[in-house]
């Protein structure tokens, strides 16, 4: 240790830029040792410094801001303790947003992951045009959220939308998709499903390909059907991956914002931030946006952000417990 500590004094410059070690580092044991000691930290430093400034600091500072009456224009930001949280919990719009978030989340995540599982199971067979299928399934994931909503808002349009045209064709009444709670949630969940099902299917497929073939062969000899193999072999074998996707999807669906924002903008500019004229599809993230970036109540919005985070942790924890219990057919 003392040897190392003397090194900077003996050498000048004390911190040779990494590039300089090119010049015969091996001839100088000091330099060599310094290089080995300092380089790892130098290599991770850019990541951690930038990440601390723009990632970690805002996270922590949110908690501090949430305890103040803090606006964009106010010069004094008095400390008000938990008042923001109290106000938040008594705001009906907040609970409305929490309900909408959960509803859209369940409507989009559950069918999405189930369908992805089935698709992956189908793709995990000797098929023709394997690559073509995979590329097509991932295509929706390449398009941006904005593009997805613009396209689907046209498809779900009241007067000229293709979906309503098809409903007309089979004799069902046209639906004004933005107008009600249920129909708007279904429309938004469809957009999310469309964008993410193929992606999750590929992740499942990757995990399935690591399952030894012999297990399936043995099951086939025993006369197990494809559905039974999916339930009895595949699902238990790829459970870690399922847990992973459930967590990631849950975190994602708790943060949905662009879909309701732009879907509402099809009705009017005012309906965008409120998620429909009666807030029928305002999500928590959109509520946060309304408070933070339309009325610029930074303190209040920060409190909403923290509560949102706690809800995410709660829901993720709940889902994790549920999926962990889902053992498939192995021990039946």
């Amino acid at each position, binding site marked *: 240790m003392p040897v190392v500590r003397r090194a900077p004094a003996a050498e000048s410059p004390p911190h040779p830029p990494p590039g300089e070690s090119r010049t015969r580092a091996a001839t100088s044991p000091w330099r060599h040792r310094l290089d080995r000691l300092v*380089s790892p*930290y130098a290599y991770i430093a*850019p990541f951690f410094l930038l*990440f601390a400034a723009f990632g970690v600091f805002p*996270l922590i500072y949110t908690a501090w801001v949430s305890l103040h009456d803090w606006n964009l224009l106010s010069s004094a930001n008095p400390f008000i303790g938990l008042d923001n949280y109290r106000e938040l919990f008594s705001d009906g719009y907040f609970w409305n947003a929490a309900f909408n978030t959960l509803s859209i989340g369940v409507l989009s995540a559950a069918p999405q992951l189930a369908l992805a599982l089935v698709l992956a199971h189908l793709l995990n067979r000797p098929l023709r045009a394997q690559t073509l299928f995979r590329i097509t399934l991932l*295509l929706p994931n390449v398009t941006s959220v*904005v*593009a997805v909503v*613009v396209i689907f808002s046209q498809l779900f349009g009241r007067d000229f939308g293709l979906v309503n045209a098809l409903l007309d064709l089979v004799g069902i009444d046209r639906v004004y998709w933005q107008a009600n709670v249920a129909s708007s949630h279904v429309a938004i969940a469809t957009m999310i499903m469309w964008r993410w099902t193929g992606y999750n299917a590929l992740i499942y497929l990757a995990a399935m390909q690591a399952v030894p073939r012999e297990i399936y062969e043995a099951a086939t000899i025993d006369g197990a059907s494809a559905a039974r193999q999916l339930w009895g072999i595949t699902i238990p074998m790829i459970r870690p991956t399922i847990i992973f996707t459930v967590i990631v999807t849950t975190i994602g669906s708790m943060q949905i914002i662009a879909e309701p924002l732009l879907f509402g903008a099809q009705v009017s500019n005012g309906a965008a931030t409120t998620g429909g004229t009666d807030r029928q599809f305002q999500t928590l993230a959109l509520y946060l946006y309304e408070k933070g970036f339309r009325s610029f109540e930074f303190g209040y919005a920060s409190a909403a952000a923290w509560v949102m985070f706690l809800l995410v942790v709660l829901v993720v924890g709940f889902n994790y417990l549920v999926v962990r219990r889902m053992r498939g057919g192995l021990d039946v």
Partner: protein
Amino acid sequence: MRGKPPDARGNRGARMRALRKHPLTYLTLVAVAFFSAFPVYWSVIVASHDNAAMAEMPPPLLPGGNFLANVSRVFDTTPFALALVNSFVVAGTITVSVTFFSTLAGFAFAKLRFRGRNALLLLTVVTMMVPTQLGIIPLYMLMIKLEWTGKLYAVIVPALVNAFGVFFMTQYLSRALPTELLEAGRIDGCGTWRLFRHIVVPAARPAAAVLGMLTFMTAWNDYFWPLVVLTPDDPTVQVALSQLASGYVRDFTLGLTGTAVATLPLVLIFVLLGKQIIGGIMQGAVKG
């Protein structure tokens, strides 16, 4: 195909048998592929007609001849050209930066020994799970302090690194980079930087390419933060697109033409390099 015996020779025969054995599998997959591709195709249809044609019943199902006229309308209505340039600058800078710093940090985490390595790597993985929206208010306040609001820095700088990239490169390099190669380099007198340049970078290239493509797509498609921090007259392409598509006047043609223009570059990249991108996603998934 009708009268062919079931055991036609060769690989092709085996696949044909698979096709006949699983007609339902193909039917399902073709249906899902149709639903995946149709909305993208539909945007091209709408973008190549005028509004009157789209109001007809039944609507047209083949592309029309109005695309270029619509495109010029898009460029007249919003600063779309500027937005495209902005998005290229933003996504390009972020891609180069993320790929470089992730490879650098990934090398350190995967192959160098130092105190606190495991703890720092764990910290990186944990932060991947924290929702980004949690910190968005203070981040905005920070941008006001730095007087970056309305400027591209505000979108670029916070995205210059991310935890996923570091994790992805760490995973790849710890598997794909032989430690013996690095030891041999050490014996030959290479410093760490030289090892990085001459051994790590070439070995990391396949994963770095995938990470670069994923990063570019994410940055190109990012919407929420640019919407918050940029102004309508100097936007990125997604912000410009959302302006086109909202408002009181229902001009779907305009919105979907913008969508097509903003999406087609990515779809093109994707169709050309789709195989590698899919490989990268699936590789990352198994470890995740």
